């Protein structure tokens, strides 16, 4: 978890578009390293997005989601100054939460 998650959220015509770029290796557990030893699985299992305190998107992910996942979704009812919070949890129990203010 070298770099933080980047979130951009913008409201146009009542619809808020959220784009999030998470920083995660998303290892499937099926790859092997140079010495032929399997690389243990390490991937995001759960993502939760909230607008102020209301849930706007929830996801369960498997290891097939690409490295440094990019997620894009839209919801209604966002206003400038509101906050969007995205949290992920991975299979090793690590987690990261990031907040962005709507523009």
């Amino acid at each position, binding site marked *: 978890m070298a770099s933080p998650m980047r979130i951009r959220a913008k409201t146009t015509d009542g619809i808020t578009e959220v784009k999030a770029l998470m920083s995660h290796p998303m290892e*499937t557990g099926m790859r092997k390293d140079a010495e032929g030893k399997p690389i243990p699985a390490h991937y995001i299992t759960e993502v939760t997005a909230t607008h102020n305190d209301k849930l706007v*998107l929830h996801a*369960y992910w498997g290891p097939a*989601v*690409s490295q440094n996942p990019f997620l894009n979704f839209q919801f209604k009812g966002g206003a400038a100054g509101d906050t969007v919070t995205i949290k992920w949890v991975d299979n090793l129990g690590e987690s990261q939460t990031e907040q962005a203010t709507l523009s």
Partner: protein
Amino acid sequence: MNYPRRSFLKLGGSALAALATTAMWPLRALAAAVRPEAAFVAKDLEGTYKGLGGTPTASAEIDLSTPDIAENGAVVPINVTSKLPGTEEIYILVEKNPNPLAAAFTIPEGTEPFVSLRVKVAQTCNLIAVVKAGGKLYSASKETKVTLGGCGG
């Protein structure tokens, strides 16, 4: 924890994992309560559909946008828009991946039935979007040709 989380159990029930999950309980009550683990570990489409609770009906109301040819199977963008009324859940499946189910989204009321994500595609195959609307499953699929697999290395 009274729900099956094989991945967590395998790790010997790390205290951290338990804490992180417990903290999410208030939100979880609103979302799909349990990770569809059976669908995530299924090794073929049939098994995945079984885990999701049925075989979906093909629908033209699901707009699936994927590249026809992906030069790099490790990063394949996929956009799903559902025009079905009452869309509750959106699933993204890659037919020939070791485990076809890549992601399961819950769409609460007020959220547009649209998601965009990047997934790994092991080999040329169909990318499938499954939408749950009004308690029923619908699907749309499109083939993506992969010139370089998503599981290299």
